[in-house]
């Protein structure tokens, strides 16, 4: 059976959802004739036409806010922000309009829409093409924030996002686009929003991660396994609202946890996950909650050695796991 890459899974999800529901349309920069910078929308213009695959001007405010408006009157917009680094202009529309529309109208209106955002480092993209900033949105209830790590999840979660009733920010890690490949079912499937995945069962320690870091955690777990250490690896998949139950159950079982994320440590997603574990599972813990994160610097630096110095990897994760186990 043919293996589908992460990015092909995205394209398939978009294609199938546009076939399934004529309310779905796409808007973003260079998504039409060009097929997207990474070719995620390749071929969609030919199939669905320029009215449903709209090449937007360089207008992140409008791409986000215009999609909110279209969602209000019955469309199902799927907007693309070309790089996560460029999402800052649309923050006003995302935070003030999209995330709050249901709340501030007392449930009269909602924004059933998706914004796809290409993110992440380990690609040599430099300061403005490598940021991963899901944590900017993590503190905004009303939004759903997704960040898949497998082709199956990418396709299934994107379909759930498009079919859902809530506004979704869907992060796609560009390092995974062509690296990750797997066999996907022929039939239609979705992946539920709000449920983490246990990627590897283990007894001695829990690793919690998502995106590229789910793979780095798996690499670390494989190495630890050879040394007789059994790590459980949880892939959050949904960042907001995050799956407390699955993570808490695992921590109760292993009593030790290391949290891994690519973004800066301060104010990150794992700061909240860690605080929640410390707050609610103190009696279960045998060691301090520990984290492996990107550095607390303004952005991911460009020069390759410095970029790798910034990023968490299997070695760093392994070191921290051993420290926790020795506690």
């Amino acid at each position, binding site marked *: 059976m043919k293996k589908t890459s992460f990015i092909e899974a995205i394209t398939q999800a978009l294609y199938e959802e546009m076939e399934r529901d004529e309310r779905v349309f796409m808007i973003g920069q260079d998504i039409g004739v060009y097929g997207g910078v990474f070719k995620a929308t390749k071929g969609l213009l030919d199939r669905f036409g320029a009215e449903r695959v709209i090449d937007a001007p360089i207008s992140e405010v409008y791409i986000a*806010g215009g999609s909110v*408006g279209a969602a209000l009157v019955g469309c199902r917009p799927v907007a693309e922000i070309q790089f996560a680094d460029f999402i800052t202009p649309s923050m006003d*529309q995302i935070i003030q309009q999209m995330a709050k529309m249901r709340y501030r*109208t007392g449930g009269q209106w909602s924004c059933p829409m998706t914004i796809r955002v290409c993110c992440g480092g380990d690609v040599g993209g430099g300061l403005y093409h490598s940021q991963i900033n899901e944590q900017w949105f993590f503190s905004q209830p009303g939004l759903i924030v997704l960040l898949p790590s497998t082709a199956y999840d990418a396709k299934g979660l994107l379909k759930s996002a498009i079919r859902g009733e809530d506004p979704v920010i869907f992060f796609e890690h560009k390092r995974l686009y062509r690296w990750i490949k797997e066999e996907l079912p022929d039939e239609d499937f979705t992946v539920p929003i709000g449920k983490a995945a246990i990627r590897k069962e283990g007894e001695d320690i829990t690793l919690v991660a998502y995106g590229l870091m789910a793979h780095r955690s798996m690499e670390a777990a494989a190495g630890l396994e050879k040394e007789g250490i059994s790590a459980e690896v949880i892939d959050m998949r949904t960042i907001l609202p995050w799956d407390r139950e699955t993570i808490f159950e695992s921590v109760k079982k292993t009593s030790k946890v290391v949290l891994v994320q690519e973004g800066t440590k301060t104010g990150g997603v794992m700061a909240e996950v860690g605080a929640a574990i410390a707050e609610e599972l103190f009696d279960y813990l045998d060691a301090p909650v520990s984290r492996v994160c990107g550095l607390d610097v303004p952005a991911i630096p460009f020069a390759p050695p410095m970029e790798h110095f910034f990023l968490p990897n299997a070695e760093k994760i392994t070191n921290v796991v051993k420290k926790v186990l020795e506690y």
Partner: protein
Amino acid sequence: MPATKKAAKPGLKQVGLPEETLRGLYYNLLKTRTLDERFRKLFRQGRFAGTYFSAVGQEATTVGPTYGLRDDDILASSHREIGAAVTKGIPLVNIVAQVYARANSPDKGKTHPCHYSWRDKGVFTPASTLAGQTVVGTGCAMGFKLQKKDNVVVAFFGEGATARGGWHEAVNYAGIHKLPIVYICQNNLWAESVPAHMQAGIENFSDRAKAYGFPGITIDGNDIVLVHKTAAEAIKRARAGEGPTLIECKTYRYYGHSEIDPADYRREEEIEEWKKKDTVTRAERMMMDLGLLTDQQREAMIEDINHEIDEAVNICEKEKYVEPEEAYNDVYSKYFPVRRDEY
């Protein structure tokens, strides 16, 4: 030929609008003015929280473009569009409830006194980041066009909001795609405390339309007939697929940015000058000249409106606030319950 000839009073033909429309416009002007002044009074009496953004003086700019819209047309308004809320037909009791933040308010007390919304009438709520609703409103117009519907959007904002980048992005997109939207710029000369000439280096804000490839026109925003006719023509064009129009209405707000602003950045003479051009007084004079209104009828109308407001205020003041736990609702659709903390 008589020795003294009075200037001929304009007839309906000269005004160019049907009697029914003139009556409707005047009624909504009067209702908006009366309700707005009442809200100011109620706020000063401490009857509701927050603050209140009065639109007294500039009613024609919101009533004129809104009158005659369909229920399924969208209003993308800002915080000073009580006239649009009244004219679009949000029930008066719900407008009052919004201001009072009571259980019968459209948003269940979650947002701001002046953020009127009512889905059945196509009014979504503004955000206080000005021009934000212009972006969303333009998106609504995009949605209508994509669905091949003949609905239109009327988007309101002040001259100050046109300085925002998002405003530019929205109207630029509308120009590219000839969206069914009419932009109403209410130039009341002051963006909070900053004068219009400090917001842009142009005299007429409608000049901005040229850069986006659609018509822009500046009009006397205190002339209800002119505002309605200009907007109706633009709405007709938009509905026919001929694209957007930017209409700048020169007008004036009599009071501060909100009720907590004494507005001492303005000269008294400026206010007095504009009061001479008062939109409601002018509309009344015209209606009387046309023989469509007498003093008695006017008094009776005001009495009826006040009675309706009294009833709405009584209902709302007796209405409870929602339970505080309502704060947990309307975050997500039913599939994603919000975590409830106990402290």
